[in-house]
């Protein structure tokens, strides 16, 4: 049957087949929630974040600024997943208490969409995540861990497929010098988020934060890298407008004056 198709279609059919084998046939025709940013969604094999799957993100460096950026990236992803459902709720399994709810609300993750589960150890985080994923009523489950064994990751991936819920894993740096994303993992996508200097404004003040978003690995797709702007209150990431592409402010001012 494959022989009669064009090369592109054959490749797509093969990918479909491999995916069905990988997930025991459960994730056939996988749903995805797009980032709402064409430049990103176009590069993702599923056209967005696959819903019933495990996704991982880690800060680029052990610096707390990068850690916060990775947190906010996952918060925005969780917010988009929650917004795609009516009354979508996100469960956030914490191991440390430094998360600040008003900051998450500014990335679109409103307090009425978020339940916190405070855990003592990484194992407890994984167990709570699995429980939340298997329930199937949540929009997404976010967890923060340092170490995750391959077997634990596989369990989460299976639980996500079973419950049709997205698992978002924040891999925090435990020791400087040990990149959390070095170890192998069954995650469908793996991201690395780091801060980059933002645009210098013409007036005193501070512009929208800017990140380097590395898609290190994705199942059924190519890695990629973007420079993106931090999410707004509706959890939308943005492409930085290049200076040349920006509307001419002088022209705008003239129009307003006229």
């Amino acid at each position, binding site marked *: 049957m494959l022989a009669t198709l064009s090369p592109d279609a054959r490749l797509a059919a093969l990918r479909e087949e491999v995916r069905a084998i990988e997930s025991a046939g459960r994730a056939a025709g996988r749903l995805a929630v797009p980032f709402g940013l064409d430049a990103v969604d176009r590069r993702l094999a599923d056209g967005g974040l696959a819903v019933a799957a495990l996704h991982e993100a880690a800060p680029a460096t052990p610096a707390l600024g990068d850690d916060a950026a990775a947190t906010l990236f996952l918060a925005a992803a969780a917010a988009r997943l929650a917004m795609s459902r009516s009354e979508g709720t996100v469960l956030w399994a914490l191991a440390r208490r430094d998360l600040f*709810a008003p900051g998450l609300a500014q990335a679109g993750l409103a307090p009425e969409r978020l339940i916190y589960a405070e855990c003592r150890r990484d194992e407890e985080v994984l167990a709570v995540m699995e429980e939340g994923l298997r329930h199937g009523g949540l929009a997404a489950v976010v967890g923060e861990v340092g170490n995750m064994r391959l077997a634990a990751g596989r369990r989460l991936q299976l639980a996500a497929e079973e419950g049709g819920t997205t698992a978002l894993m924040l891999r925090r740096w435990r020791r400087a010098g040990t990149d959390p994303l070095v170890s192998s993992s069954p995650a469908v996508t793996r991201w690395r988020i780091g801060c980059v200097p933002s645009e210098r404004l013409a007036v005193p003040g501070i512009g929208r934060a800017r990140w380097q978003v590395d898609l290190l690995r994705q199942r059924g797709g190519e890695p990629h890298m973007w420079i993106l702007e931090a999410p707004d209150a509706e959890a939308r990431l943005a492409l930085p407008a290049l200076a040349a592409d920006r509307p001419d402010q002088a022209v705008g001012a003239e129009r307003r004056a006229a």
Partner: protein
Amino acid sequence: MAGEGAPLRAGGGAIFNAGLEASFPPRFVGSPSPPADEEERLTCSCPNAPGFRPGARWAREEATRALAPRAASETPLVTTQRTGQRITLAAIDPAAGALGLEVGMALTQARMLVPGLDVRDADPEGDGAFLARLGLFAARRWTPRAAVSGPDGLWLDLSGVAHLFGGERFMCERILAFCARLGFSARIAVAGTTGAAHALARFGSTSIVSCPEGGEGAALAALPLAALRLGEATLAATRRLGVETIGALAAMPRAPLQRRFGADLLTRLDQALGRASEPFDPIVPSDPPSVLLRFVEPIATAEAIAEAMAEALRRLVRLLERAGLGVRGLDFICERIDGAELRVRVGTARATRDTLHLLRLLSPKIETIEPGFGIERVCLLAWRVEPLGPQAIAGILAGEPPAPDLVPLIDRLVGRLGARRLYRMSAVESDVPERSVRRIGPLDRPAAWPGWPRPTRLLSPPEPIGDVLALLPDQPPRRFTWRGRSYRVRQADGPERIHGEWWKRSTEVEAVRDYFQVEDEAGHRFWLFRRGDGEDPRTGDLSWYMHGVFG
């Protein structure tokens, strides 16, 4: 007790009526021994039971006890209620009484007579609820038959119970002492009829009145007619006729009284004197639903415990279905051969009768049960139940999928982590960042924050930063050192000035924090603040702190 015929005392039946003031949150019912933190409860009590008739001596006496710890302040205290358009005094304390205030007086008049009066609102519902719980306690501790009498009294049927407490006299003294420990001054009367007990408790001469058998007529003769539980109109009419005491009324011919006042007056009189019966509506304490299983052979394996648990749960659910109740809290109690009791406790976020769900909550706890030489009895006790009727399923007919029910998940996570570790965050009306969030239950509705820029991760407590180079009064820092690394600021925004909350702490009266959002050369964003506004040294010492990190 309330049988027909004159000598109602026959058989040792006796009723007493304790006039009780209910004015603080009920906390003791259910715990058999009175709690020890008496001082604390006394301070929060105030005399606010309504329905004290003007001039009732015992009402004032109650206030004495309830307010004893407040005596140092010497401010007269009254509680008020609204009657029609007027606000009148509902209860007063002895200090107020000594100044000439009376229950029923208008508040404006009282304020005029006594400036600086401490006025509080009466809380009839709270008092009623407290009295009901006190009645429940009485029904559990003192007598099987107890009932609430009006807004301020309890009836206890003493038939066959007084000897358990050393006789009527001793029993009354014990109950008075119990009430005194709670901060009430009660009055007790023992009589052969409920009517006579009611009258003597409120209008008797001493705090314990014991009416001899068949002596109701003589004991009541000197009391005013108000003691008979009559309506306001009847009382006014009798006063016009010149009938003041119960004795005078009893001596009058019955036929004209019946014609003039209707049946009510004579019925009350007959009930007090034991010539007519009176219904008694006792409080029936309900036990929490429970199931007890006894085994022929002691069990010790996890499978056997699981089987026993499932069987007990099935029976309990059947029990609950019949009663229309749902479980909020459940105890699984195993009694071992050596007499030890092992208890496993689970709670649910919403009332439920779902066997599977409850079993899923209970069964992970089996591994915590140490069976020892074997378990001979298990008991499943629903210590907290709520009414649970059928519920409407929303949205099915309209074709939209129903919102997923998170309650089973929440119960399971609470069982795993503990109730305090699962929460939502809600806004608090405070500008100080560390005070602007609070935890609420996972099913409660949170409030949102205003849109000021706030960091993703907040450091608690804020960490001091050094080597800060900044222009005063309101320029952001150019450079600083934090955790042993120096940072050069590329861009910054601020200041956002946050004042101390002077209404919370005296040290914050003039305190000011100026917050800056800064970005270093690598693009990392920090939330820094400086104590003080940079001009007035009283607002802070100009030290700098790192408070959070933006994403």
